């Protein structure tokens, strides 16, 4: 095994990981510790708080990285550099306003309510068209039993959820509403439970590889 700084990083990752992990299974406050902290539970809280702080500082580094990418694009006058200029101006103005007057100041809330909120909501509205087109293409082009079951189920749930082809007051709505509830609360719930269990298995093993220092995304 070659000796290197990665052993130090691995020790840090494995050490902090095990302390935080034990917190899920063991009442750590009953394990005394002398020195900087009274017990392991306090040490776990400290580690988590440091992690929260480092995550926020990493966000700052990420924003600097974003600034650098677009600044490079402007200085090299690459294609689309004007858009990067718009981004950098609004980023700097909003950041200064937020730092000086606070993120809950009227000026920052003006920018949030006039641009960020409507843009994100409009992107979500675009999703309606995207999903409808995707549903049409899925069943029109793939043409296998699974896609047919997928779109058929979606159709039944839509009809049974609210007004559409059938109004909520029509005679048949009761049948479709019952069928919709059964699909959601039985068939989909069972399938969702299987998917959740599968995803949990995958997550556990991926996390264990990091805790056993087999995967070392933090570099050498």
């Amino acid at each position: 095994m070659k000796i290197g700084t990665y052993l130090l990083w691995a020790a840090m990752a494995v050490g902090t990981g095990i302390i935080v992990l034990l917190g899920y299974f063991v009442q750590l406050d009953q394990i005394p510790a002398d020195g900087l902290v009274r017990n392991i539970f306090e040490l776990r809280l400290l580690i988590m708080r440091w992690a929260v702080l480092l995550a926020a500082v990493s966000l700052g580094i990420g924003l600097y990285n974003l600034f650098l990418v677009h600044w490079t694009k402007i200085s090299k006058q690459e294609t689309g550099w004007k858009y990067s200029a718009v981004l950098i101006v609004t980023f700097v103005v909003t950041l200064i306003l937020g730092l000086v007057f606070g993120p809950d100041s009227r000026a920052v809330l003006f920018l949030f309510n006039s641009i960020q909120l409507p843009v994100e909501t409009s992107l979500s509205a675009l999703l309606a068209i995207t999903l409808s087109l995707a549903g049409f293409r899925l069943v029109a082009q793939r043409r296998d039993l699974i896609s047919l079951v997928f779109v058929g189920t979606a159709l039944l749930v839509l009809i049974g959820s609210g007004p559409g082809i059938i109004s909520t007051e029509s005679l048949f709505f009761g049948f479709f509403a019952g069928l919709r509830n059964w699909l959601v609360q039985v068939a989909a719930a069972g399938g969702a439970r299987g998917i959740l269990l599968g995803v949990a298995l995958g997550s556990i093993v991926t996390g264990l590889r990091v805790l056993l220092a087999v995967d070392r995304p933090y570099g050498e």
Partner: protein
Amino acid sequence: MPELPLDFIEMIVAAFVTVMILSYVIGDNVLFRIATYLFIGIASGFAGAIAWANVVKPTLVQPLIDKELVSLFSREGAVTFLIPWMLVLFLLLKLSPRLSRFGSLPVALLVGVGAAVVVGGSITGTLIPQSRAAAETLSQEIVFTTSGEPLSIWLENLISALVLILATISVLIYFRFSAQRELTGGARRSRIAEIFAYLGQIFIAVTFGVMYAGALMATIVVLAQRFQFLHDVLTQIVGGT
């Protein structure tokens, strides 16, 4: 006229930006790109300001203002102030490509905590509760009729419980990776696993169909709400009320 012109301006700008984004339906265009870059700039500035105000300033800067220097070097000060400062300084080495290697200590801490939260949260939050819920599906109240319960309800509950267990087991079997090696070098499931996997695929399609319908309903509500907003802005501008 609305009392505060700022609100009115806010509404007008929001309406313009909404139309600029919805124009992407036609195709990628200048309006969409301007609105997008405006949005990314503001979102970044806003997130940076919130992270500073809620986390970085209270932990690293406020103690310098509020507390005396002596207390910062005490036992409590070491863990709440000095060690965090040291970790942050190490992390800032990531900004320089040359020294970036030595900034991996805090990153390793982040990864360790993240991996532990993933493993611990999955075991205690999903694996155990969901397995137990699946096992309890076929409880006595469901299988054996209680007095006064109509037969149809009992039958429906029994079938539902069986379908719930069957769905969970068949979906789990579908995701099984191990397979048998074929003569021609390919890989295939065993006969029984193949049947359960096919059933599992159908239940996955049903589950995804339900979620897709839910998401579609949500986005239609958002689309309707956007046009409701544009309609309100137009009526306010035209009506001048």
